[in-house]
Structures are given as C-alpha cells and as structure tokens.
C-alpha cells in the first residue's frame, strides 16, 4: 500500500476543480489511457491581464494522479501565465506534502499539462507535437523529456527517471538508452572543472580546510554519534582529534583516511591528516 499524505488522500477523495470549462481559452492534454494515467486541463484566461481566472481538470488515473491534478489547479488559479509557467513538478508535489518516489510522475504529468495548455494558448509549437526521438516506447517518453525532467529534479539513476517519467518501467528495453542519456547529461555538467591546482595562500588553505571539515565531514560524523576537532595545521599537515563516538570506534583509522581523501580532493593533493 502506498503511503499517501493526508493532503493527497483529501484531494483524492474530495478533489477540487473537477469538470469542464465551457469554451476554454486553453486546453492541455497529456498521457493516455493505455499508459494508465491521463489529464485534461482546461483554463479560462483574462486576455487583458493574462491571469488564469479558472482552471478545471479531468483525470484518469490513480489517487496521486487525481490529487496532483487538483493541486495543480489550486496552485495556478489567480496567477498570470508567466507566473504559472514557472511552477515545477516539485512544487506540485510539495503542495501535496510529498508523493511516494514511484508516484512522482503524477506531478510531472500536471506540470506538462500546464505547459501544453499555455504553449497552445500562446500559439507556440507544443513540444509533444514536434518529431521527438522516443526513448521509451512502452510509455511514449522522449529523450527531451527525460533530459528536462532529469535536469529539473537532479535525477541521476534510471530508477529515478522511471519514478518521474515512467520511462524504463515497461519492458525495460530502453534502460541502456536512459543510462547513456544520464551519462551524457551529467558528464557535460561535471566536465567544466579542470581545476588547475591553484596555489592557495596559507590563509586561504586554512580557511578552506576549516570549511570542508565543517560542511562535509563533521555532519556525517555527527550523524553516527561521532565528531572531530581541528587541532592544528602545519603546512600541509592537518592535525585533528576524534571526539565522541569516534574515540572508541574501531573504524577510526578508516575515518581518518576518508577525511584525508576528502581534503585531498577539495583542498590540495598534498594534504596529510594525522589524528591525536
């Protein structure tokens, strides 16, 4: 059984803004009955102000699809089209107090219906109508969609892509393609750090070491009941004292090695860590 929030349950059992708008100014339709969920969004738009006066929906789908559709209409009513366009699928999920990972695609469906409706209203070419490269044939998901959703939600694994877009959740034939897309996508992002080993001044180095210890290392140790204290920095030698649970921890040596590796990576290659 899915663990739905009370908000999801409420908007599923008592959805708001269900139905059709007569002569709607904009309509966005996404999904299909074969895929298991589909949403038709209808908008009434004030031509003077560009504000969404009314929004209604019809949804075929599970509880989270119905609740996401209802949440979307609540979120966009009264907003201008430009404001509405900025709404992300995460905001729809947040409005619901969160969705199970496997159901995030319902929030994506809401955001897409809105995008389609606005694009059509503005006379833009709707993305879905262009000739895109379809990656997942079971659920008709394009490479563009996978890239966009991955970027917007910082998705790095195939499983996450499936949760958010359904792609890869059918026959699984496209899983290698999704892996390739993710590799390509995040490789591009990670490449621009050909950090030339910049020579740090002593002062900069000390500040950076302190910063890495505070932000990267201590929170992780503290999460396991441990801690550390920075005792001294002599050139490239960082002297630390393990505290709390770390003192008695038999893995202390491993911890020190890990800290050293992190400092080598983020501060300077020549760092050596010693614990006292």
């Amino acid at each position, binding site marked *: 059984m899915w663990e739905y929030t009370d908000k999801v349950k409420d908007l599923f059992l008592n*959805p708001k803004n269900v139905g059709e708008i007569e002569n709607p100014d904009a309509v966005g339709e996404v999904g299909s009955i*074969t895929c*298991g969920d589909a949403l*038709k969004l209808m908008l009434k738009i004030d031509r003077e102000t560009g504000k969404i006066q009314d929004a209604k929906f019809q949804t075929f789908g599970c*509880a989270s699809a119905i609740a996401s559709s209802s949440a979307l209409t609540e979120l966009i009513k009264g907003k201008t089209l430009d404001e509405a366009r900025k709404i992300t699928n995460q905001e729809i999920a947040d409005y619901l107090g969160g969705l199970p990972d496997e159901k995030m695609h319902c929030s994506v469906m809401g955001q897409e219906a809105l995008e389609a409706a606005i694009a059509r209203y503005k006379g833009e070419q709707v993305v879905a109508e262009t000739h895109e490269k379809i990656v997942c044939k079971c659920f008709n998901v394009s490479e563009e969609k996978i890239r966009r959703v991955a970027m917007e939600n910082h998705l790095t694994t195939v499983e996450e892509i499936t949760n958010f877009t359904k792609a890869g959740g059918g026959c699984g034939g496209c899983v290698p393609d999704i892996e390739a897309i993710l590799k390509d996508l995040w490789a591009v992002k990670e490449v621009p750090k050909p950090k030339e080993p910049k020579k740090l001044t002593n002062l900069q180095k000390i500040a950076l070491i302190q910063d890495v210890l505070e932000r990267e290392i201590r929170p992780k140790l503290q999460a396991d009941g441990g801690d550390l204290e920075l005792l001294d920095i002599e050139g490239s030698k960082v002297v630390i004292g393990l505290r709390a649970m770390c003192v008695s921890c038999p893995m202390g040596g491993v911890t020190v090695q890990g800290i050293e590796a992190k400092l080598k990576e983020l501060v300077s290659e020549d760092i050596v860590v010693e614990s006292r």
Partner: protein
Amino acid sequence: MKPIYLDNNATSSVAPEVRDAMLPFLGEFYGNPSSMHLFGGQLHRQVEDARAQVAAIIGADPSEIIFTSCGSESDNTALMSAVETFPAKKHVITTRVEHPAVLNFAKHLGRKGYRISYIPVDSQGRFDMDAFMKSLDDNVAIVSVMHANNETGVVFPIAEIAAILKERGILFHTDAVQTVGKIPINVKELPVDMLSLSGHKLHAPKGIGALYVRKGTRFYPYLIGGHQEHGRRAGTENVPSIIALGKACEIAGKNISTEIQYVSRLRDKLEKALLEKCPDARINGDTINRLPNTTNISFEYVEGEAILLRIDKHGICASSGSACTSGALEPSHVLRAMGVPFTAIHGSVRFSLSRYNTEAEIDKVIEIVPPIIRELRELSPFGRDKLQACRAPRSTE
C-alpha cells in the same frame, strides 16, 4: 469498522479453531521435535498427525508431504529439484500466467542457459493445449502449470496435462496454492509428481506451506542442513504453524462441498449485480472452469487503484491488476497474457471471497461500489469515442 474482506486470494483470516489449536505450541509446548527428551520429542507425534491431516486433503500418503515456509518455497523447491536431478535436461515448460514464485524462477533458469517455454492462454485465460503439445520434447526437465490462476480464478486442465506427461515420463509440478481447500483435489487420481500448497490461503497463518512429492519421484532438497523432514528440508520444524496447517486442512476438507456452494452463490450474486449496475464492465476469465470464490471485473475508463482506495474508505478490501497498485508500472501479466485491452486492465478489480463472508456484506458491496465507479468516471476524460485513439503499447513477452 469491521472490514469487508474480499481479498482472500491474497491472504485469509486465521480460523478461530486453527488459532486455538496452535496456541499451546506457542506456550507450554515449545520443545524441539528432534530432541531425545520427552518434552521435545513428544511433539514429533503432533507434527506427524498434522502431516496426515495435510496429506488427507489431497489424498496423499503422509510420507509424501514436506513442510516448507510458504508457497513460494514449495514452488522454488520443486523446480530446483527437477533441475538438480535431471541435469542433462535443459528445457523447462511453464505458462505465461504463473505466480511470480514460478515465473521468476523460470526466468532465473533462463538466464542460466535453460530454454523456457511459456505456454500462452486465450482471451478467457484458458490454457493453450495445442501450444503445450508442440512445446514438448525429450529435453524437458519439468513442466510446471498452476492449478488455478490467482487473479482470474481460471482452473487449468491439470488432469489432462498430467496424463499426457505421465505417458511421456516427464516430471510435472502444479502450484495448487489457490485451489487446496477451495476445490477437491485427489492425487490418487491426478498423476502430478509435485504439488505446492500454502497455509495462509486456507485460513492457517502465514509462513507455512507444504510440497507434495509423489513416492518414487527423484528429489533434491532446496534447503540443505539438518535431517528434518527426512533430509528433504532442513530447519527446525515450525511446530505451531504445522499444527495450524493440519487443523486448517482438516476443517477445509470436511466442509469443502458446502463451502463451494455457499461461497459461489455469494460470488455469483455480487458479480451479477455489479455487471447489471455498472455499464461498461466485463468479467475477465473463463466463468465455467473457475474457482468458486473469485471474480475479476474490469470497469472501463477508471483506474483500479482509485477504485480500491475509494472502496477502502468503506472498509471493502479487494485488489487490482492495475499498474498503479503494483510496485511496477506495468499492469497485470495475467490480464496482458489474455490480451485484455489496456483500457480494461487498468480498471480491473478482483474480489475473492471466503466462507467468512456474509450475505449482508455482499449486499453492502453491491450498494457501495456502483456509485464509486460512476463518480470516478465523471472525473475521467475518457469516454467511448476516446478509446479508438488509444495505441496498445508493445508487449513484453
């Protein structure tokens, strides 16, 4: 609110008599039946009595019963034993609609180099005998065909299959988890070599199952260790649950014909009323050769999870073949194998009854479900005209 429990193919309540029978073994009689001292050793007799009760419900000899931890273990054991004892044979035959305990084990063997034949079913969920006959060759290690399908309740012609295989000397296993206690089985007349059953589907607790292995069948254990079960399944006996399974089989065997009448009458009433009150609804599966307790109905244009959660508000428990109710995104492999249109699979609901359901409960379900279907259809953008535009996704098999 007392639930109206119509999900007995998923699991069933522990019968009060069964609970009473097992309780002493969770209390004062905690010994190990293998012990030399009387305190433990006396339990051996009780375990053997339970074995006889389990054997009786399928007409077996007690020595042919091996206790396991669940139906899945029984299924895995049967397939693995065949593979171990016929190492030269590299072909396994099963169906496209098996329970995952068989289907995924077959896929596992497939990855190890075995050829696996998945026998199809027709639109009514009936076993394709022609395809089966064509699949047979001299290289078959085992054929595993379920007795009845858990989703549709369709009963397969295992007597016919068993006769064909016996003649050819091919090992035959049937997963009878959904049938033991629900319809009569007699292995004296039915030449199966192995048969799986599970406690929690017939009002015993979860965590206990059994595998019938016909005398003279080559066997290799799946769980290797101690001498329990005559070396056929290691692990200290789950005494309380074994006692419970024995009691549950005894009760089920005694009442089977009255129960079939009682449960099928309620099921038929429910099915008829729902089809009458809900337009665009259809039954999935053959209604002639079907378990007495099961009906699988598709309500077009609505999604199963939405139906389940709305009826759940009224305490009605059922299940669905919809994609959204499973961990996966693909809907029921059983309904897809039958070629049920996707539009109907998503809105499929399985009601599975037991002897503990009452007429009043069924009347309440008949009153509550139709308006919920109507409400959800009002929410849905789909109607008849939309359906033509739907493209069926690629099948996985």
